[in-house]
């Protein structure tokens, strides 16, 4: 803790060091908070504590061997990073993916999205002081993890996708389990709403707090739920269709929904609740339409992508998950760069924070859903 610094003529500013280990900085992340009493003048995020050089690591891995590393970029949405990477390589190889594999990818990704939103919504409520909703959502997430473990063997870092398809097929028993999970889960969303979404204290804590206008959201490159909450009707799944998504019907929730104004914390919260419902809808359509066939296209054992570059983006749980891949024709990727939702979301905090209270910063960080490993890579 540094000494309070004297700024300006008469008022003292309290410089607080929030993090790197603080209960509400998800992961290891530091904010230098300049406060005047409870009101913040500025909060500057300092990132990099979880930089593991995953982009540099790609340069020494084979194309197939890099797949498990992509899981580590964000352990909460590993399927999306895998999907983005696989799509980037496939774009260079010009591989056709079998339809069943595309469906399985959608199933895996949407399950992952629900699991991720469980954590996000739970963390929001926990950061606002309610512990129990977090536990309920974690319990639901465990069921999804069980499903994913039965599907691909790991609970968090899945390594399920392969270049050209997926690793394992599903059978009817697993699909039945998925269906019964959906039957169980959809009423749980209602229960969650009764418990916390309509809760007056929670609404008071989030409504009209830390408003990010649509203009700002676009300029700072916010994506995903954060962008939609600000009122920009945009979803990569619908607007730049990839995989099997054109075959599904789903709504894209866009703020303002319910109480509050577009771009405030409560909207970011509501958009995510609604997205869980839409993911359930997509999963049900997947179950109805799942085609038979191969689950992996023919790709050479040692992949050598032709010279060139590609940028593939998927709608991750935290916004656009993009993978920029450069190939020099060798067997290792020449350069991989990840464009992640948390990175942009983190960069807007300094811009949004002035005038908020310390408690609001917690709400802002939680609802922007910034995850330090995804930001730092």
């Amino acid at each position, binding site marked *: 803790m540094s000494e309070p610094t004297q700024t300006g003529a008469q008022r003292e500013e309290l410089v607080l060091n929030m993090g790197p280990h603080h209960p509400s900085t998800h992961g290891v992340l530091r904010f230098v908070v300049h406060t005047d009493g409870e009101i913040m003048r500025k909060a500057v995020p300092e990132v*990099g504590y979880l930089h593991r050089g995953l982009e540099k690591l790609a340069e020494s891995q084979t194309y197939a061997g890099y797949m498990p590393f992509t899981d580590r970029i964000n352990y909460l949405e590993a399927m999306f990073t895998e999907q983005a990477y696989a799509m980037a390589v496939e774009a260079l190889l010009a591989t056709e993916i079998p339809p069943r594999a595309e469906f399985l990818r959608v199933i895996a990704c949407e399950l992952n999205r629900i699991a991720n939103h469980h954590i996000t919504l739970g963390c929001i409520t926990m950061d606002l002081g309610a512990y129990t909703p977090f536990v309920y959502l974690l319990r639901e997430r465990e069921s999804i993890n069980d499903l994913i473990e039965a599907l691909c063997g790991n609970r968090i870092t899945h390594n399920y996708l392969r270049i050209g398809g997926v690793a394992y097929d599903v059978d009817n028993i697993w699909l039945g389990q998925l269906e019964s999970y959906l039957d169980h889960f959809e009423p749980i969303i209602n229960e969650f709403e009764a418990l916390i979404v309509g809760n007056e204290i929670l609404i008071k804590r989030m409504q009209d707090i830390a408003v990010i206008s649509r203009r700002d959201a676009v300029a*700072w490159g916010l994506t995903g739920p954060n962008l939609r909450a600000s009122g920009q009707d945009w979803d990569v799944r619908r607007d730049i269709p990839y995989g099997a998504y054109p075959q599904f019907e789903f709504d894209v929730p866009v703020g303002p929904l319910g109480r509050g104004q577009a771009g405030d914390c409560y909207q970011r919260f509501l958009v995510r609740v609604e997205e869980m419902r839409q993911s359930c809808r997509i999963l049900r359509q997947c179950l109805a339409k799942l085609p038979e066939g191969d689950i992996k296209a023919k790709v050479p054992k040692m992949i050598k992508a032709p010279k060139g570059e590609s940028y593939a983006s998927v709608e991750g749980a935290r916004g656009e998950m993009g993978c920029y891949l450069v190939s020099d024709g060798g067997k290792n990727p020449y350069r991989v760069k990840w464009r992640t939702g948390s990175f942009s979301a983190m960069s807007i905090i300094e811009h949004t924070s002035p005038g908020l209270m310390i408690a609001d910063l917690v709400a802002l960080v939680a609802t922007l859903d910034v995850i330090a490993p995804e930001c730092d890579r």
Partner: protein
Amino acid sequence: MKPAEIQAYLQQKLDKQIEWHEGEKNTGDPWAIVEPDLWVDACQLARHDTELAFDFLRNLTGTDRPDDGKIEVVAHLWSYVRRHAFVLKTTVEREAPKLSSLATIWPAAVWYEREIFDLLGVEFSGHPDLRRIMMPDDWVGHPLRKDYTEQADYRGIPTSRPGYVTAMPEKVDE
């Protein structure tokens, strides 16, 4: 607009030759390369021209090309209004890489440029807050350069763990 049309449009508006590249087997994304002194003008045009209206800077990054002695800076652009994408590149000298900042055009570029500065060592003039972002402030070198070698230790902490498999004793079980 298609990327090729955008390239032609840019070329006409800027009144300069813009290089146009595609992947080896026409797979992946094509890209356009502008001269570094045109970089800000081209981006300004891309952002504010009503035909282009690239309001979303999707990604801004760099690639080290030691064979050419260059560092590429790549911007992936997207327009919510026109719904089209474009890949714009420029190259800077590897020895003393300097480029103008895009921070005034897209605020999102602030952090992306900090990252490029940190990991590739490109200096952006006119940047509001050019500090290292991922690595510690007193780190030596720019890790994403191809010829980068890690220092053996950082403030007395070794940067590598001995590989147990290779440094294995013959007998594991005591």
